[in-house]
């Protein structure tokens, strides 16, 4: 599994009096296959995971994935770290399902036949082969999230970061996404408010006001998170 090393990272948004610190001196190393992240809205968890593929650059400190700095070696890092957002509509780039899955492969120097074969493989693997030529905007919410996952996973990242991928989904679609995530060989970092998704995870970080306030097994983390929510 890739080693994610976050060293003394702090980060703020805004300027002057509107400046708000969202992460404060985080120092953590993550090597487990399944890592969960929970915390209240605004606790810094989404900013934290955006550090992992260089979408956010830390104000101070460093973030490395397998020794590659997310700022200096951003391109290499993004090739290894796939990112899936909450709202699939915002990450579907191409008009049809197959074209969106192929989009990520087009800039990787593959031949057209390779792109076609890998696209077809991903569509089949995620139950979308019957929708290949369908307009992406006409898919259901769950299918859109599966498409977003397929579009990221077709590039075969070593690490998959998911930022609340089930927040907009009903229970059935959330379970579908869960089963896809369960079957992945890759390392997974999952931000979620659906605590049952964390069953079987190796490690869960609880965020509060920009700091990691609990780091351990899911059961203990859920207790700590619930205690924070009712405090």
């Amino acid at each position, binding site marked *: 599994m890739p080693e994610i090393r976050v060293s003394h990272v702090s980060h703020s948004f805004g300027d002057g009096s509107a400046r708000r610190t969202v992460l404060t001196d985080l120092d953590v190393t993550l090597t487990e296959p399944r890592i969960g992240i929970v915390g209240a809205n605004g606790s810094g968890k989404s900013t934290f995971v955006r550090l992992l593929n260089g979408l956010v650059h830390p104000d101070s400190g460093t973030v490395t994935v397998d020794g590659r700095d997310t700022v200096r070696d951003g*391109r290499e890092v993004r090739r290894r770290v796939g990112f899936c957002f909450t709202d699939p509509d915002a990450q579907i*780039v191409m008009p049809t399902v197959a074209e969106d899955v192929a989009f990520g492969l087009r800039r990787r120097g593959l031949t057209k036949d390779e792109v076609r074969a890998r696209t077809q493989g991903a569509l089949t693997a995620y139950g979308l082969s019957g929708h290949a030529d369908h307009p992406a905007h006409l898919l259901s919410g769950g299918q859109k999230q599966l498409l977003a996952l397929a579009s990221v996973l077709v590039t075969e990242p070593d690490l998959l970061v998911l930022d609340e991928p089930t927040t907009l989904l009903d229970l059935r679609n959330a379970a579908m996404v869960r089963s896809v995530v369960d079957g992945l060989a890759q390392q997974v970092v999952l931000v979620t408010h659906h605590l049952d998704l964390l069953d079987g995870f190796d490690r869960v970080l609880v965020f509060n006001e920009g700091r990691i306030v609990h780091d351990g097994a899911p059961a203990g983390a859920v207790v700590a998170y619930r205690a924070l929510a009712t405090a």
Partner: protein
Amino acid sequence: MAAQAVPLYLPGSSVVHRTGAGTKLLVLLAAGVALALWRSPWQVALAFALVLAGYAVARLPLRTLVRQLLGLAWVAVPLLAFQWIFASWQTGIGVVGSFVSMVLLAGLVTLTTRTTAMVDVVVRACGWLRRLGVDPERVGLMLALGIRSVHVVIGLAQEVREAQHARGLRASPRAFAVPLIVRSLRHADRLGEALTARGVDD
């Protein structure tokens, strides 16, 4: 976001589907030039008939054509009335007929051509821009995002309209436009982040 509009691409195996994207875009360009030069009623009628024949050869569903025509009626009917009153019926038929024919022809190209095929043509055609520091891949990406954004904005507009109805607000252009623009900008922001995450900036 369930935007119900004319689909972007309808798979098929007709001659029109199999014709190369470059050829189809050239025909579209040539038709645009021709209809700008020749606008007599019979010339426009001939062009319209050819476009309809194109739909038939492509074996596209009749309802797709009807939906396109109904969508155009909002602009075409007032435009025809205006031209008829202030110019002549011949001018009205010429202007509106060429406009409708061109939009339908563009629709025929889009409905029978994958976006990636069109993007590939545009990227190849813009290859010379590389010498001027312009990345042709980005030009192609802009085209793809433009096409995709049509349905995104339609979906956002539906959401805004539904939210207004739910709150009992009457139709007001300002109350409609402001949230639509704000939502569109927010969507653009998130899309930019997703493109960066997918390595487009690298």
